[in-house]
């Protein structure tokens, strides 16, 4: 009889037992429990929130348990989800548990305050219930955080800027975080894994975890020197976080060589000096200084530049330099390649010129002279030996 009374007393006790009792003596816990990590939550009106629940069975025989949510304020929708779909009953095995989710759709404009919802699981012999306090708050602490370890990078217009970003999921659940970057016009941005080359647009982050991603910004090569802001925006469901990074682009000269009117060919006569116009232009974003000009031409050719060095070339400016080239006297007629180089402190450029060498016509005149001499001999013979 005693034993029965004790048993009858313990059953309701166990059902309503506070968590402290279960933690102190886990071995002694028996019965059915509805568990959640956070039984009192704050949500924002007009949003949808999910709460993880667990239906735990300690030592009772398996049983069909009908599920329902009580105390739902008018206009709210509370749905119990199991395995991703709405469920109305659960059946945990002995010493087993079933994961459930409580999804709350709270309409906008609901008054702030605390509402208590009760989740009930009811079987033939056992029942469990869990009161959940839902506080409606206008402002919620950030659920997502994005940080950049090195938010300001410096480089030239040709370099690519890589920012390490850490995204932390501070919300209570796993999120699929998508990100976008807002960069100045014509800047190319892409997100990749921290150690990988695959481009990403979103990444799943578990609750409380953080992940590293990399933002790669490639400025257009024509961009001028200056600081350019890029804002990174991270969104997941209803949470948003932004971070600002900056590119500091230092100007860089970019040299180009070409012929006058883009003509990369020249004519020269063997052994004689001829002048080729070479145009040095700076298409970069900073002035080029001390540009030295040199050329590699075939053996024995003489190439000199007038002037030999260009002291300073502003961005976008160009300057004409005369290359005075003298092919070697014994050069054969035909086309030759000559490479002209411009070396600045940090920049260099080269261009190939095709030089068509012609030979002197002096020997042609000499040949005509030989024929003339032969004709003269003929005239002499006619005059000397002429007879009837």
């Amino acid at each position, binding site marked *: 009889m005693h034993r029965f009374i004790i048993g009858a007393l313990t059953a309701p006790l166990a059902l309503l037992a506070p968590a402290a009792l279960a933690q102190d003596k886990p071995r002694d816990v028996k019965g059915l429990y509805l568990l959640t990590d956070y039984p009192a939550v704050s949500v924002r009106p007009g949003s949808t929130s999910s709460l993880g629940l667990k239906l735990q069975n300690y030592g009772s025989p398996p049983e069909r348990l009908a599920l329902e949510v009580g105390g739902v304020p008018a206009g709210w929708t509370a749905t119990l989800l199991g395995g991703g779909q709405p469920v109305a009953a659960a059946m945990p095995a002995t010493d087993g548990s079933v994961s459930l989710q409580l999804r709350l759709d709270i309409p906008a404009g609901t008054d702030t305050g605390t509402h208590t919802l009760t989740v009930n699981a009811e079987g033939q012999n056992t029942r469990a219930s869990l009161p959940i306090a839902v506080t409606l708050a206008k402002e919620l602490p950030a659920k997502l955080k994005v940080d950049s370890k090195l938010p300001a990078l410096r480089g030239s217009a040709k370099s690519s800027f890589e920012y390490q970003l850490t995204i932390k999921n501070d919300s209570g659940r796993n999120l699929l975080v998508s990100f976008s970057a807002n960069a100045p016009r014509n800047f190319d941005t892409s997100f990749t894994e921290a150690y990988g080359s695959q481009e990403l647009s979103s990444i799943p982050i578990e609750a409380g975890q953080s992940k590293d991603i990399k933002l790669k910004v490639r400025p257009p090569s024509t961009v001028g020197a200056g600081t350019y802001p890029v804002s990174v925006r991270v969104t997941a469901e209803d949470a948003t976080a932004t971070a600002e990074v900056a590119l500091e682009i230092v100007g860089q000269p970019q040299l180009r060589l070409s012929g006058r009117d883009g003509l990369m060919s020249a004519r020269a006569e063997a052994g004689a000096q001829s002048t080729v116009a070479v145009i040095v232009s700076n298409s970069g974003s900073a002035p080029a200084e001390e540009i030295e000009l040199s050329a590699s*031409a*075939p*053996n*024995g*050719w003489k190439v000199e530049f007038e002037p030999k060095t260009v002291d300073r070339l502003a961005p976008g400016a160009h300057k004409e330099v005369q290359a005075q080239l003298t092919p070697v006297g*014994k*050069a*054969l*007629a*035909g*086309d*030759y*390649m*000559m490479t002209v180089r411009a070396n600045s402190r940090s920049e260099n450029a080269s261009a190939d010129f*095709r030089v*068509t060498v*012609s*030979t002197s*016509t002096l*020997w*042609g005149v000499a*040949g*005509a002279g*030989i*024929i003339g*001499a*032969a*004709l003269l*001999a*003929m005239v002499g*013979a*006619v005059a000397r*030996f*002429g*007879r*009837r």
Partner: protein
Amino acid sequence: MRREGSPWRGLSAVTMKELADHLSSARMRVLELLVLLTALAALYGAIRQVRDTTAEDPFVFLRLFTSASGQLPSFMSILGFLIPLMAIGLGFDAINGEYNRRTLSRILAQPIYRDALLLGKFLAGLITLAISLSGLWLLVIGLGLIMLGVPPGTEEIARALAVLVIAIAYAGVWLAAAMLFSVVFRSPATAALTTLGIWLFLAVLWPLLAPAIASAIAPPDLRAMLTGQPGIAMLEWQQALLRLSPSQLFTEAMVALFNPSTRALGTIFLSQLHGAVIGAPLPLGQSLLIAWPQTVGLVAASIVLFVIGYVCFQRQEVRA
């Protein structure tokens, strides 16, 4: 006795008469037929080869003259061999034929000087050769147009024309040589044999003899022996000796004009080719400049041979 008046009096009469004789003679027809048939065979082979292979060549038309197929040598090398034959055929009995027919004193009894007679005969022979070579040249261009269906470019025509002119000069050398021997020898058979002998010697034997003579003049030095290559001095001697032959001069001029990428005809040092764009065609003027010494050699040689013949003729007893 000194001559009175212009030495050229009667030149046109002699030239026209000789020209008419040449163009109607059976000898000329046989020679032309020989050249034509051989050249056509070579041309046919060349056209077939050009069609098969060189579709991307910017100088397709020039390949008609230079490409050799199978056993047949190229059109121009056949021409280089046969032009002397034609010229010798026309010139070997120019003077001694008249002498043997006892017509020389009769002609000279007319108001025609010996100068005009010799020059008239030479010019008539040269004009005959020029007419037949130009005809052959036009035939090649025409056949090329029909068989290839590609019009020749201006530069190709200009190069081919230059070669035609050089070929006429080449014919002039052999004509002058044949006429020289027809003055020197009283018998046409001896004159013909001598000229043909010289031609065969220069065309066939001289290319074999010249390297041997060159290596005798400039024996290879130690470095050349070690590397197994001929010395530079020897190469230069060899080339100089070879260039004594008109056929060599003609061949070289042809190479320079028909292969536009030819940069030089002599020995080339590797250092001269440093930085050169190999295979780039030279402009026509530069090719002409390369072929110019050869052309000068041919023209000057024909003038000199003619002058020697002239001097011999003037000092000769012409009465039979």
